């Protein structure tokens, strides 16, 4: 068992911030990578323009002989730089455009290497130019690799971190007891099918799309009667998640102020996509709905249904056809 403070700290700043998508101050790493790609794009644009407008000056700068052939090569390189620059500025998040710069760098290095064999070239300037291209190439490769990784992160599920509160007109001891019996959770949590507890480990089953079921194991890692419950998925589970729920007396004899904090780790692949669908586009709203149903169960005895709310999606507010069956959570079986 951990103390509440230590558990909170882990929840807020702990291992779950492994950097897949977010840096320490919560800014998207993707945005950082995009800004860098934009910088490189601007650099391409400037270099390309210089090569097109002043090929002689550029040739002198890098130590190439001022011949028609080197001017033509520089003009072609300039056009390539312009294309890369425009591409990167227009789509700074695109890894493909970033990789065009890396390919260009390799081409430039090959041309520079070839130029060392030219008797009319200036080796000192060529060496300086090669060093500069090597530096830029390192930056380009890092940027392109980062963008590629971000593109695959996009396909992963970003961490879901939700904090929600509600006031329930029952004493904290009662609300705590109801939640502590984890098998009650599916009575108000829309995405859960069942929770079963055996030997201190709970097995959670959730409905996935198209009749699939996802399952994971969790354990209670903090238990303060009438005050708080913290749980965490067991090591190696397919759905890493953790949460803490707190029960405080509401002022003025209004029952319990319940605060729940949940965190789901990012996941890749089909399973990640399934988890994303479970929570929809607004996980906070779904958790809020869960808490509202909990309040209904504890204050009125059951989840309340309306003619429209039993259906998935929009449906006119009129009685359902007689063959529609409704489950405990108030949804019509489709």
């Amino acid at each position, binding site marked *: 068992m951990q103390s509440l403070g230590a558990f909170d700290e882990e929840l807020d700043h702990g291992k779950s911030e492994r950097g897949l998508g977010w840096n320490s101050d919560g800014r998207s790493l993707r945005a950082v990578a995009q800004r860098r790609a934009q910088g490189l794009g601007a650099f391409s644009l400037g270099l390309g323009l210089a090569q097109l407008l002043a090929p002689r000056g550029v040739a002198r700068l890098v130590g190439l002989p001022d011949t028609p052939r080197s001017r033509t090569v520089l003009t072609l390189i300039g056009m390539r730089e312009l294309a890369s620059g425009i591409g990167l500025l227009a789509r700074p998040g695109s890894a493909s455009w970033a990789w065009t710069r890396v390919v260009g760098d390799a081409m430039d290095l090959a041309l520079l290497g070839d130029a060392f064999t030219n008797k009319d070239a200036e080796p000192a300037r060529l060496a300086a130019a090669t060093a500069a291209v090597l530096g830029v190439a390192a930056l380009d490769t890092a940027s392109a690799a980062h963008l590629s990784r971000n593109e695959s992160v996009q396909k992963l599920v970003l961490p879901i971190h939700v904090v929600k509160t509600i*006031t329930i007109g029952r004493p904290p001891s009662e609300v705590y007891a109801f939640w502590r019996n984890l098998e009650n959770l599916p009575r108000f949590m829309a995405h859960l099918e069942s929770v079963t507890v055996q030997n201190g480990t709970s097995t959670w089953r959730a409905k996935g799309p198209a009749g699939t079921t996802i399952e994971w194991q969790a354990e209670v890692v903090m238990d303060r009667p009438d005050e708080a419950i913290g749980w965490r998925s067991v090591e190696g589970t397919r759905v890493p998640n953790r949460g803490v729920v707190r029960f405080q007396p509401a002022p003025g004899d209004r029952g319990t102020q319940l605060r729940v904090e949940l965190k789901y780790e990012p996941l890749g692949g089909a399973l990640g996509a399934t988890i994303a669908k479970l929570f929809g586009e607004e996980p906070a709203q779904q958790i809020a709905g869960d808490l509202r149903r909990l309040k209904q169960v504890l204050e*009125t005895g059951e989840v*309340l249904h309306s003619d429209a709310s039993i259906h998935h999606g929009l449906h006119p*507010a*009129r009685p359902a056809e*007689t063959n529609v069956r409704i489950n405990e959570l108030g949804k019509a079986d489709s």
Partner: protein
Amino acid sequence: MKANCWMGKKRVSVENVPDPKILNSRDAIVRITSTAICGSDLHLYNGFVPTMEKGDVLGHEFMGEGVEVGRGVSNLRVGDRVVVPFPIACGHCGACRAGSTSLCENSNPNAYLAEKLWGHSPSGLFGYSHMLGGYAGGQAEYARVPFADVGPIKVPEHLTDEQVLFLSDIFPTGYMGAEMCDIEPGSVIAVWGAGPVGQFSIASARMLGAERIVAIDRFDYRLKMASEKAGATDVINYEQSDVYETLMELTGGRGPDGCVDAVGLEAHAHGPMYAVDRAKQALMLETDRPLALRQAIRACRNGGTVSVIGVYGGFIDHFPMGAVVNRSLTIKAGQCHVHRYLRPLLDRIERGEIDPSFVITHRLPLSAAADGYDMFLNKVDECEKVVLKAA
């Protein structure tokens, strides 16, 4: 069963829909004998309330006979004759225990929609948009009534449907409008809007002991009903005289002690401001046009109370906050907490202090609901209140 459905702006039609059934243990199914079209239904009809779906069953003023009772309802039996309050209330949450049933915290399954617009959600209502629960309404042959152990009130056989039907909404709503004015002996109360709710505010102000009650409207037949039936001592037709000047004349320049806005978001008025608000509403620059409310605030005496029972849905412009602050006005508002008024107002009806049927001008079969909406909206044949007979 047959039910009157919202089919789009200015379109309602009686359709065949499935019969309702018990969905929760505290439900009851009521076979509806009488139902009515409310002024607030006209806001739905005119398309001013968001989150309506084509096919929604309308209606929130209804009564009838219990035909099926859920296992969690011990105080009602099949065959009981009941009037059903329009807000749906669980009876157990903080708001219900405080008597504020139109703020029930458990009866709106779509609370998140209301929270987006208003910050918090009120209770669910029958037949009044998905934002307020997505419940089928009572302009139908049958209705499912959730929390039937809390809402419906049994009514004695010797009272007719028409005498008790309006306990469902407009009588308690009008009463609450008057009650919020904290009427004392000598009070002068002005009521904007002599529609059915305004009539009941006037009648209630009279029962609560107001000395003078001024009715304000633009239809003489409504003002006539206000003075002859409801008990208004004075009337103002705002198309013929200036409301502010007339009220000052009537009150020795003080202004009314209490001002009731029984008009709401589709107010009419004289003058250029009306055109401005109509235009803004049409362009979606404001959702509601608060012409009556502005007048009420301007006219109210220093330190007086403005009581808002007309329906507003969204946002208004040119709200005279300066008058409210500098003249110490109190503004009270709310959807009626019908449950708390049912028993005392039924008692008043039984004692003969009021016969609410005085507002009824038209009785139609449920099948003619569409005609009823049109008559009520366009004031055809001096229409004041339409009752639909389901049976």
